[in-house]
């Protein structure tokens, strides 16, 4: 299964991203929501990112322009992207009873922050498979044991419910 292609296809077939160059400033990328409101980002030429949301009463204007740091933008992308990926994976093995997909966050106090995935020995200890890691909204499919985890990553794991509980515990406490 090619996760990256699957996720990409899912975005592509349902949502249209409008890209508008802003000469002298940067680029605006936005999508129109079903209700007609626009949400998107402005990428300034110096790399700054702003989140924009259009006003309900005046679709041409913006309710807010929120400046985001790279880390904040990455965290937001994870929050938005991970549930979508998990739903999709759950859909794909609905016919395998007992098997579910869950997202397991790496928190700042996790013992595996900054250590390779292999160190967790999740498969041996909990019989759970890591199928992907989400970082800054990007899917890293089939990570190898030397893939270094950092706080903020979301580990996408497949297995039975109680095994997944155990795996979450391992990632949080070691």
């Amino acid at each position, binding site marked *: 299964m090619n996760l990256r292609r699957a996720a990409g296809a899912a975005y592509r077939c349902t949502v249209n991203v409008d890209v508008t160059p802003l*000469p*002298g*400033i940067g680029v605006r990328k936005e999508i129109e929501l079903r209700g007609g409101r626009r949400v998107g980002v402005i990428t300034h*030429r110096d790399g700054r990112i702003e989140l924009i949301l259009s006003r309900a009463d005046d679709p*041409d*204007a913006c309710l*807010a322009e929120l400046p985001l740091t790279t880390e904040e933008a990455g965290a937001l992308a994870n929050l938005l992207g991970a549930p979508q990926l998990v739903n999709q994976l759950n859909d794909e093995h609905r016919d395998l009873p007992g098997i579910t997909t869950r997202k397991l966050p790496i928190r700042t106090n996790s013992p595996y922050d900054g250590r390779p995935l292999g160190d967790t020995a999740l498969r041996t200890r909990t019989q759970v498979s890591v199928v992907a890691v989400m970082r800054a909204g990007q899917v890293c499919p089939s990570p190898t044991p030397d893939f270094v985890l950092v706080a903020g990553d979301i580990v996408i794991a497949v297995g039975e419910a109680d095994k997944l509980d155990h795996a979450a515990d391992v990632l949080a406490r070691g």
Partner: protein
Amino acid sequence: MDHTALELLELGAVFFGLGLLGRLAHRIGLSPIPLYLVGGLAFGTGGILPLGDIGDFTSLAGEVGVVLLLLLLGLEYSAAELVTGLRRSWLAGVVDIVLNAAPGVAVALILGWGPVGAMVLGGVTYISSSGIVAKVLSDLGRLGNRETPVVLSVLVFEDLVMALYLPILTALLLGVTLWGGIGAVGISVAVISVVLLVALRYGRWVSAVVDSDDQEVFLLKVLGAALLLAGFAQAMQVSAAVGAFLLGIAISGSTAENAARLLEPLRDLFAAVFFVVFGLSTDPASIPPVLGWALVLVVTSTVTKFATGWWAARRARIGRMGRARAGAALVARGEFSIVIAGLAVGYAAVPDELAALATGYVLIMAMVGPILARYIEPVVRLLPDRPAVPI
């Protein structure tokens, strides 16, 4: 006191004074340009404190200020953006020229300043201040608005027009014949086409000539190249500013971004000196007699610029409120109006009243523009909606 000490004291006082004025402008949320002009008026001819000893330095620094203003304007937009802008918004650009040069041309002709005066004053009322407009849009959080690309593309078009207008104006100021003027148009169109083509195809190479990993080397190379080209353009009797502008266009990509970042503080410094020098050359006592005409220009050119923005936004299918915002955003005039007036004054081909009129006009427009942009929404909301027309 020895001479050097006096010069340093004067220069220090000027810069420090400008700093205080800039801070004041920041406090009250205004562009510093009108305050710099007022600072220049306060010193110099007929002002409260004539500056004697640093005149040579400030006038050269003012020239460097113009070169840097135009260089950074060129750096701001890539050749590709200019070409796309030209293709997409030429109609709005033409409407912009016709509507907004008209008030200046009319007033100059009424005052009997002849075709050259009309050409200068038309330019002064035509060109919006891209510096003030971009700052207002970002301060008011309107970068994400749908009318903003419309506003920006009008600015891009105006900047291209500058590249054509300045050489023609220079030719006229030098008093060439009609055929000479047409020759100047032909040459400038050809040069700009070549530069755009070179920038599109070989922009990397131009960038590679000035680029360097070392910031100091890079700064010296870019500044040196800009001044060399400006001097060359001046010697060829097209304006110095155009040479710098074309260099700015030809430098592209990350080199352009780095250059803009490095040169911005220098631009601010020398441009401030330029505004002061322009203010210096104007006798404050000459402004009140032309203030009436300045107000006429303020009112008419505010209306015409607003109409331009409104029309351009309507073509882009923007709603009523967005059209009003686009119109109001474009109203501010500033640095480039002064560059045009300064060029004319430098050749002494126009009456002194024109400089006074331009000063008074820009003083008011640089303040009116941002205020109008800020308060246009509540004003439009107060107006009654047009009755819905059944289709």
